């Protein structure tokens, strides 16, 4: 996905409501995808994303345009997800994924559903720091330097997290894929 037109961000920063709405429209799906994969619960993910955009609106005047907007947005989103995970850890956790797209007009592909569920289960079993690094790197396609600004971790630590996440996923999912 291409980056947002910075003039929209600048207009939103100046208080243009339509520009802010355009900004939300542009990033909402990506933010929701990240939050769903991080939290494993579509309701918590939706709440975290909503909260993220409210906070983005409140802090836009502090956004430094030398920083990439996407990095800034994901930093806030990642923190919201961590906060939610901290709260969730104190409650009994139910793994509920939902709303992942499939064509409702065609019969469900059972193998595809099983494959998707196995991935989600394996992803949920990863340590949160590794899951976050893996998603930012491979799903969101961010550079390690940007990931460092988002997570506060060093580049070598992030590379190690991604490497371990890949090893774990490979170990858990190789048999499933072969089957």
């Amino acid at each position, binding site marked *: 996905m291409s980056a947002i037109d910075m003039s929209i961000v600048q207009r939103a920063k100046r208080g243009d*409501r339509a520009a802010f*709405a355009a900004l*939300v*429209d542009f990033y*909402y*799906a*990506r933010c*929701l*995808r990240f939050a769903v*994969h991080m939290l494993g619960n*579509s309701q918590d993910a*939706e709440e975290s994303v*909503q909260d993220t*955009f*409210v*906070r983005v*609106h*409140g*802090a836009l*005047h*502090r956004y430094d345009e030398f920083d990439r907007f996407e990095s*800034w947005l994901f*930093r*806030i989103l990642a*923190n919201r997800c*961590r*906060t939610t*995970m*901290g*709260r969730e850890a104190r409650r009994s956790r139910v793994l509920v994924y939902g*709303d*992942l*797209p499939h064509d409702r007009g065609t019969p469900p592909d059972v193998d595809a559903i099983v*494959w*998707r569920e196995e*991935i989600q289960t394996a992803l949920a079993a990863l*340590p949160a*720091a590794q899951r*976050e690094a893996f*998603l930012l790197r*491979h*799903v969101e396609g961010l550079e390690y330097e940007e990931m460092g*600004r988002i997570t*506060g*971790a060093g580049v*070598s*630590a992030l*590379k*190690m*997290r*991604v*490497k*371990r996440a*890949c*090893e774990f*996923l*490979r170990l858990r*999912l*190789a048999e499933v*894929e072969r089957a």
Partner: protein
Amino acid sequence: MPEERDELIGHIVDELKALPVVPADATARVLARVDAARRAGPSTRSDDDDVIFFPAATDEMQAQSPLARPMPAAAGTRRRFVISVPAAIGYALAATLAGFLIRGALPKQEATVALLGDSVVRAGATVRPVADAAANREAQEAPVAVQFVLDAARASSVALVGDFNSWDGAATPLARDSASGSWSAVVKVAPGRHVYAFLVDGKTWTLDPRAPKAKDSDYGTEQSVIIVGLK
């Protein structure tokens, strides 16, 4: 370190890249919440207290630690990095002693505490609490009038932004005292920990030199801290 993506990881990533269905009213709900936050005015919550960070000592750090990394072996010999229990205890005691010495050398700083009640207190001042206020719950929860002051004689405008006014740069302009050149505003703030800063000339983020500072976990910038309520 080589990139860890192969065909299997590629398949996993392809699955994870599928974008979820966004509710049709998602943007409208964000805008409604933004409007509600504006209408609600000063916030009573501290946004930063609930941020959870991943633990610093992670497995990859252990893997990179000299204690965990095998030492290079000389020809024909096997060398291991070994630390004895007495030495470990000695290091721990030395670190504790150093901590006490450093702490003793630093000036003691008390948190900014505001009086409960109707009086106006100044942000950055260290003030003792009312002795019998603890018995009165209503008094504990009532907003406190706090005077925020910034000396900025050459500024053309100064605004107060903080978690208590949703970081709105237009919500709390400061008034200039022409005699002293300082800017001030009195704001009712709910008891609790709050973070704030001054926005000078609409663009320059300025901390309160009279108050302690803290780094904002979400946005990475420094902020001034005020604690309002009983000590």
